[in-house]
């Protein structure tokens, strides 16, 4: 009996070890598009082995409910895996919420199973696990709500907001410290959940749509760290590894996104973008804007040698990616070199534009990163901007009073002709005026992105006859 038990335990540990290796390989293979799908397979096999190993665990007596929960979870997971590509940001936020929910519930159960005999270090890690996971849960739900436009997207700010938020978080930390010293105080534990749940909501209230890429990455990092903390509580090295991988991934992405907006983490979380520009927007004189029709735009594009398309969130909203693909085909057929310039924070999550354009069958070698394409704009005949605004705003280079001053931008204003597809002259989401629109070389193409691109495609087809 003892030998069999020990053998079982060894088998479980070996399965976990293999799963850890597969998880690391999974991320390694994701580094290039050619091997990326092997990465998914490796992750799936690792997951199956880990779950199989867990089911061998000697203390497990109830398999029925495990099976029922696995089936229900899969039933929810399949539709979440089949959402439209434009809905991927809110789906991602929602899955951060689910992950955090799992960690919160497991942490809560572990506390009530172990109290009052919880060693100080264990209690400290357990508190960290529950605090991080609870705030990630509501924070991610709020982010998903804003992205799905169930909640108002505009940042909501008020005086003393940062003070209130930090105060709320401080309450949770004080209670955590008390519990470390008195782990028998079981009636205090709910505070460690409820207060961070409130903090999660307050944290996302001042966040606007343009900050979503950073915030989603940050929540991703929190979700990973809370899972790693859970690994310490359960003494599971597999969980520590998976949590550390997820945590570092989210952290790296947050750093990349913050850099791409020239802002610090604290500024994203405590800076509430929306407020600043109200002051900057005053004292605007009437300036001349030149506009063009689809017919004229098609003529200029057909005569060009090199065209760079700059997509932004507006393209996603208008679901214009498939029409953009038709434009890409039509121009490529005429011998025009068409490429796409992707700003790191274009869209609502890291890599959002790449996925949408890939969905529309645009080859990924035509999708250029900002640093790789910026040097090519002076040799570009037409820069066509579809639904992007702040990432093309030259004020970021020159105007020190601009709230986005210092943010790296796509140098579209260096192209010979700039075309901007836009609904109206209203400033974009962040409310910042864009001097690009008043340049002599700029033509405004007013209209819905999808129907305007469609118009250009029709004109191009007409000209070829």
């Amino acid at each position, binding site marked *: 009996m003892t030998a069999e038990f020990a053998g079982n335990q060894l088998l479980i540990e070996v399965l976990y070890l293999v*799963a850890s290796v597969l998880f*690391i390989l999974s*991320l390694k293979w*994701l*580094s290039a*598009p050619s091997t*990326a*799908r092997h990465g998914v397979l490796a*992750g799936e096999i*690792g*997951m199956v082995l880990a*779950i199989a*190993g867990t089911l061998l*665990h000697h*203390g497990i*007596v*109830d*398999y029925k*409910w*495990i099976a029922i*929960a696995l089936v229900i*979870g899969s039933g*929810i*997971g399949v539709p*979440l*895996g089949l*959402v439209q*590509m434009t809905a991927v940001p809110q789906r*991602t936020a929602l*899955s951060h919420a*689910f992950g955090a929910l*799992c*960690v919160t*519930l*497991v942490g809560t*159960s572990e506390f*009530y199973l172990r109290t009052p005999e919880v*060693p100080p270090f264990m209690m400290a890690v357990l508190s960290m696990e529950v605090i991080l996971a609870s705030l990630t849960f509501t924070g991610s739900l709020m982010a998903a709500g804003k992205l799905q436009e169930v909640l108002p997207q505009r940042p909501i700010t008020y005086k003393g907001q940062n003070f209130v938020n930090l105060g709320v978080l401080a309450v949770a930390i004080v209670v955590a410290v008390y519990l470390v010293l008195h782990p028998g105080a079981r009636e205090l534990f709910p505070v460690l959940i409820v207060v961070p749940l409130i903090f999660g909501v307050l944290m996302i209230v001042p966040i606007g749509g343009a900050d979503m890429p950073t915030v989603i990455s940050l929540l*991703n990092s929190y*979700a990973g760290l809370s*899972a790693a903390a859970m*690994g310490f509580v*359960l*003494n599971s090295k597999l*969980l*520590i590894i*998976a949590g*550390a*991988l*997820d945590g*570092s991934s989210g952290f*790296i992405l947050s750093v*990349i996104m913050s850099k791409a907006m020239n802002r610090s983490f604290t500024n994203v979380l405590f800076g509430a973008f929306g407020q600043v520009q109200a002051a900057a927007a005053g004292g605007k004189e009437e300036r001349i804007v030149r506009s063009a029709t689809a017919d004229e735009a098609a003529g200029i594009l057909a005569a060009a040698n090199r065209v760079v398309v700059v997509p932004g969130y507006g393209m996603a909203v208008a679901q214009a990616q498939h029409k953009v693909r038709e434009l890409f085909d039509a121009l490529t057929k005429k011998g025009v070199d068409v490429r796409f310039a992707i700003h790191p924070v274009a869209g609502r*999550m*890291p*890599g959002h534009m*790449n*996925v949408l354009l*890939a969905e529309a069958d645009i080859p990924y*070698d035509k999708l250029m990163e900002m640093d790789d394409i910026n040097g090519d704009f002076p040799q570009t005949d037409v820069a066509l901007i579809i639904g992007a605004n702040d990432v093309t705003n030259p004020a970021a280079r020159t105007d020190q009073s601009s709230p986005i001053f210092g943010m790296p931008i796509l140098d579209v204003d260096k192209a010979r002709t700039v075309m901007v597809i836009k609904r109206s002259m209203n400033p974009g989401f962040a409310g910042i005026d864009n001097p690009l629109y008043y340049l002599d070389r700029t033509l405004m193409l007013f209209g819905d992105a999808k129907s305007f691109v469609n118009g250009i495609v029709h004109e191009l087809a007409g000209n070829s006859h």
Partner: protein
Amino acid sequence: MGSTLIDGLFVFMLAGFIGFEVIRRVSPLLHTPLMSLTNALDAIAVVGAIVLVGEHKSNLSFILGVIAVIAATSNVVGGFLITDRMLKMFKTSRPTKP
């Protein structure tokens, strides 16, 4: 207790470094699939929840465990599914090696 804690910290530190080195190399092209894949892998937290359900030590831990298994499993299934769907879409215009 003390040594398992230190073991855990070593594992965390090493995994963190591996994470940084591996993920730094992921092309920005694939940042969205990266996030959905790490999300699916992170749902390995399901193993902790499975043990809670299976051991049925208290009614509270059992009920919370069932909900936790459901939440994590939906991430496992949904995360892998959507990552694979996204990666399938990335095609190159250059001829690919067989």
